[in-house]
């Protein structure tokens, strides 16, 4: 297994995530896309650590940080989406443009 394979997978996952972030209408799907991107990043991190053991020793640690942050962010994000849904009866991000100029 070489490093490049993991990186390509990670890039692929990241691109899917970006695509989903920009295209999907449902807020929950957007959050999912963000999760996907975060996981892609995790994959990158672990792969690099596995490949560069001594030079990059913090990869796993960093990955755990990312997971933690992702968890926190999902918690808050879903809470916000729920509240929005309760108030507006819709989770469509296209309709959420009140905080504009």
């Amino acid at each position: 297994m070489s490093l490049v394979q993991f990186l390509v997978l990670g890039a692929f996952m990241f691109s899917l995530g970006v695509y989903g972030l920009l295209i999907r209408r449902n807020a929950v799907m957007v959050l999912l896309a963000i999760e996907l991107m975060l996981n892609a990043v995790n994959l990158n991190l672990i792969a690099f650590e596995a490949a560069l053991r001594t030079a990059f020793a913090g990869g796993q640690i960093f990955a755990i940080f990312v997971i933690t942050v992702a968890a926190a962010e999902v918690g808050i994000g879903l809470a916000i989406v729920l509240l929005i849904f309760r108030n507006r009866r819709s989770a469509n991000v296209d309709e959420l443009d009140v905080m504009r100029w």
Partner: protein
Amino acid sequence: MVHATDGGWLAQWAWLIVVVPFLAMAVIVFFGKRMPRKGAEVAVAAMGFVFVYAAVLLILNITQGVIYEHSVQVAQIGSVSIEWGWVVDGLSTMMYFVVGTLSFLVFTYAIGYMKGDVRVTWFFAAFTFFAGSMLVLVSAPNLMQLIVGWEGVGLASYLLIGHYWEEKENSSAGMKAFYTNKIADIGLIIGAIVLGTAVGSFRYSDILDAAASNSSVLVPVAVLAGVLLFIGAMGKSAQFPFHVWLPDAMAGPTPVSSLMHAATMVTAGVYLIARMYPLYAGMASDMRVLIVIIGAITLLIAGLLAIVQDDLKRVLAYSTVSQLGYMVAALGAGGYTAGLFHLWTHAFFKGLLFLTAGSIIHAVHSNNMSDMGGLRKRMPVTFWSFTSASLALVAIIPFAGFFSKDEILATLGHSGYTWAMWIGILGAFITAFYMGRAMFLTFFGTYKGDAHVHESPAVMAVPMAILGVASLVAGWVNIPGVYEGFHHWVAVRAITFPSFASEGFDVPVMLTGLGFAIVGVIVAYVAYFRDADTQFARDRIRIPVLWPLLEHKYYLDDLYLAVLVNPIKGPIARAVNWTNSYIIDGIVNGAGVVARLVARFVYGDLDQKGIDLAVNTAAIVTGSAGEQTRRLQTGKVQQYAAMTVAGAVLLVIAIVIFT
């Protein structure tokens, strides 16, 4: 050198003559109103003191001769020393005596004349001030003190001429006297400065020493100084063309006219020339012909003016001017004694003439001869005094004026001024003519008026009588060949000077002069003695072109007013004021207006529309930049996400490219 003593304690205390009148003035000013005679008693007492002391000094000078001078320094600035002092010598004792005697007699007379006047106390205060100033003038040992006294008498003249200042003409007459004198004083002041600076001292003794010894410091300025001092003398002694103030000065009370404008103040100019005689006889003698010319012109034109006057005092005023012309001409011709002798006699008889005129005016309540006539019987003392004085003035032997006028004529003839002598002889005719006219119109004929005419009270009559006697005997102090006392009195001076001979009897001249005078009296008798229906009708002679010219005083007054006074007072003064308000102040105010305009421009345009504009524009630009930038905030999350991704991609690319 003249034989003389230093006068002892009499001379050392002579300063009292000068100071006592001023003390009297102070007493009169502060206490006069409460006194029984309103301060007149103090004035007369002071003059009495002056008279007695002056008489004593005169006797001292006659018997022993006295030359004394003392000065006290009152300030020193650089090399100029300011001093007050007094001189006792032949010339000044003669002047003290004249001033003292006339003052004493006229002050006494004034007690009666000014009775019931609205301002008796003030009158005597001012009169005493005059006497004091006159004494300051004649006692001065230096030119600065002379100027102090000179201006002082000028002020007194102004105050006293304008005594009845409720009427504007009277105060105007006073101002005219002051201005005319002040203009002439320019000459006196500059002359004094020139002399004082050249010699390094203002003292007579230093200046006259330099003059007598032909000092080189005086050579460039002697003639100029002589001319300048003479100009000053012309003003005070009413010489042509400065004579115009004297007739108008008759607006003052008659004692003033008598003392000041006949006997004393107007003689100050003559005194000045006499005092500076060593200069005039020596280094400045080149300009003496000017003095003779002016004197001769004055005596002639003034005499002619006296012929046409209706106001008795004006006749006498012009007569005074004319006689002053005689004195001045005499001095110019080298007749030191002659000029001073005529000053002496003239003081007595002219002073008396004014007193008698006052007496008449008091009785008739009018100055004009057209309101008089036939007063001979009703006012005998006045009449005989007047006659005595007139005979003296007309120069009939043995009255005083005969000797003095004859001496003048002789001097003029002998010094080569024969033309002036003939003018003087002609003047004798004119004098006799106008005095005859005055006498006949006033005292002869019948009185047609309705005033209650009576003789004056004793306080007025006695001084007149005394002066009447003086008019007879005063000339006997200098009869050539018999007794030449006066000549010796006034020669007693610290400096001797040339051309100083008293003339002997010049019989042809004497007889000619006397003859002309007698002819004048006869012509006047023929013209004016007879009575007529009105006084006015008695004034029979009227030569066509000459009379109107004389009545308008040769149009001199009109000339002065039109050319000098009115332009200065009117257009010129207004032009200066206009220039000040519109041009000078115009610039100042204009500066203010311009400053405000500039300020408005600076504020409105430069500041508000300029600098502030830049400041505001910066703000506006910032604002609109913000306006535009805020459009990025669409509120759409996915757009934000897209921008973030795009930015990140660009960043990565940049990093890859640049590393």
